[in-house]
């Protein structure tokens, strides 16, 4: 009969004591399981928000007249993206929002390009009144605006401000030769220049719409800055109309708070009409190679999910505060209890030592006894907590978790650590027992 069988017999034969430890473990493992479950629920709910939730369509009055708004679909199913390896991660750029568009300046009449030119496409903004611009770089005069995502399939394209076209006697369809680096490189790097030919695929008006002027003024008043129409409307005027009706993807990799290191993608679509919504869905599916299981909701607000998340965060906060304290109390309590029980088992342990049993095996028996009780407690506690959280989820609108193995494994690991700690003192006590004094 090995120590595992002995542990089993001991647990069965000493039901009262086993039951007491079982109840303590039941409560502890319930709390631990709930903590891990809510943590997972929170992450899953966040993920599902992007994956399956409603996607708001923003209607913006600041857009040019022929656009009604935009949709941005964040595809943040990190694990799925990673596992598919669909995209060459080496090509992904680490972006912050400021990296998506970059600007450089040149003086009027100088059609040279910045070194950091993207290889996919570029546009050149023209600063109408450089002296009045609040931006130092705009004061130089012309401004280049280039964007990697805009013309991914047509890298040698360029969009120019109509003022630049006029000054250089150019028109749409013409080609121009620019001194740029053929490979996209870091903004701070100093690449070698080479001449490249670009086709002018479009132009845009330098004049802002009244809606843009109103929007800029409103923002300036709200946030307390001087209105600056020298750049923003030009950018909006050029960028959005030309990208309207086409979806473009932006990939990024970085560290996400919930998912750790990950890559993600987002697609943006500028709408000319509401019919474009379905086209956007088709485009995104084609670009990502996945089904877009979302409902597009013109009137949706993200408050529903936020409410659900706040409930989970509430549960988590309570658990986080009390769990650590609770676990420490439980460890102390169980250590005292098991030490007391072990003192009552001096004779049994002395007999086993007299029979030649190693102290290591006696310790293992002690540990296994707790493992058996803890396992039974976890088997009972886990579904109870799952049911409670499922009921809460239906009430408060956050995601039902479903039976999942990860929080269970996490709980069992914590349980084993607790057992390791609570059996330390009894083990030391056991090691010091002298069978001769107990038995003879």
């Amino acid at each position, binding site marked *: 009969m090995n120590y595992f069988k002995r542990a089993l017999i*001991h647990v069965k034969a000493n039901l009262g004591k086993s039951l007491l430890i079982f109840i303590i473990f039941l409560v502890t493992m319930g709390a631990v399981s709930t903590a891990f479950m809510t943590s997972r629920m929170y992450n899953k709910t966040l993920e599902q928000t992007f994956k399956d939730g409603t996607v708001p369509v923003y209607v913006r009055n600041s857009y040019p007249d022929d656009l009604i708004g935009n949709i941005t679909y964040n595809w943040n199913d990190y694990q799925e993206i990673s596992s598919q390896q669909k995209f060459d991660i080496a090509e992904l750029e680490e972006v912050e929002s400021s990296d998506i568009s970059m600007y450089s300046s040149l003086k009027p009449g100088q059609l040279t390009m910045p070194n950091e030119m993207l290889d996919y496409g570029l546009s050149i903004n023209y600063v109408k009144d450089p002296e009045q611009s609040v931006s130092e770089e705009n004061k130089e005069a012309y401004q280049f605006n280039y964007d990697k995502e805009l013309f991914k399939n047509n890298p040698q394209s360029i969009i120019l401000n109509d003022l630049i076209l006029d000054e250089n006697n150019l028109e749409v369809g013409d080609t121009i030769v620019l001194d740029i680096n053929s490979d996209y490189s870091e903004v701070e790097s100093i690449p070698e220049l080479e001449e490249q030919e670009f086709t002018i695929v479009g132009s845009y008006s330098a004049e802002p719409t009244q809606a843009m002027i109103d929007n800029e003024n409103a923002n300036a008043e709200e946030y307390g800055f001087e209105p600056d129409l020298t750049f923003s409307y030009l950018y909006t005027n050029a960028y959005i109309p030309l990208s309207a009706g086409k979806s473009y993807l932006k990939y990024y990799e970085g560290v996400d708070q919930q998912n750790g290191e990950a890559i993600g993608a987002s697609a943006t679509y500028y709408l000319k009409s509401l019919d474009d919504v379905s086209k956007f869905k088709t485009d995104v599916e084609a670009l990502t190679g996945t089904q877009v299981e979302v409902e597009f909701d013109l009137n949706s607000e993200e408050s529903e999910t936020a409410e659900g998340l706040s409930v989970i965060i509430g549960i988590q906060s309570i658990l986080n505060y009390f769990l650590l304290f609770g676990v420490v109390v439980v460890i102390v309590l169980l250590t005292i209890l098991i030490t007391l029980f072990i003192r009552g088992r001096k*004779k049994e342990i002395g*007999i086993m030592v*007299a029979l*030649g049993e190693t102290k290591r095996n006696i310790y293992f028996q002690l540990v296994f006894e707790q493992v058996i009780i803890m396992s039974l407690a976890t088997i009972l506690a886990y579904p109870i907590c799952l049911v409670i959280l499922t009921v809460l989820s239906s009430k408060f609108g956050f995601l039902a978790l479903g039976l999942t193995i990860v929080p269970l494994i996490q709980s069992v690991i914590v349980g084993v650590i607790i057992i390791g700690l609570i059996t330390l003192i009894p083990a030391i006590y056991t090691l010091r027992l002298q069978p001769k004094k107990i038995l003879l």
Partner: protein
Amino acid sequence: MEKLEVKGLSHQFRDGEKLRTVLDQIDLIFEPGKLYAILGYSGSGKTTLVSFLSGLDKADKGTIEYDGINIETYGLDKYRRNKSSIVFQQYNLIEFQTAHQNLMTAMGITDNELPPNSSDIAYNLLDFVGIGKTKADRKVKMLSGGEQQRVAIARSLATNVDLVFADEPTGNLDSESEREIIKLFKTLANQYNKCVILVTHSDQVASSADKILRINDGKINYE
């Protein structure tokens, strides 16, 4: 067959302010197939001696060799596990286990090779000492003193060791049980070739032994 040999064994313990010598330069040889009785008055050191012989404790001086190997060098845990077993006056069985489980526990601890049908062997051993199947499956605390001592003897045989020690094995038993237990020990020694060493203060118990050793003032004399 292996012999148990004691060479120059000495031991003292503190008795108040004084150091008292309980064993003084003892030399002994125990052979298989014999029942030995160590006789002495209470406090004479006979239990101390058996605790050294059985590997439960270490003496201050001297050596105990089994089959020519110092038992301390061999390892006292290992010695108790594989070479010797002990029967106590208080039986010292695991009370929440059945008689059969007590034997299985001992069989699970020893490194000695045991037959694959160890459960049946355990029942047979219990039967051999007079504990039938029904009682074998009872918790030992439900058995009488005499029955518990029989279970303890069966346990000492379960690990298939050659040395069986017994410390006042009949001390808590009535005279009829005493006779039966001593008969069992004699059978073990004479028919099963075990070396059985029992400690007693009873001349009557000692009279059944093949050899009697009287311990007095730290010295041992053969009778």
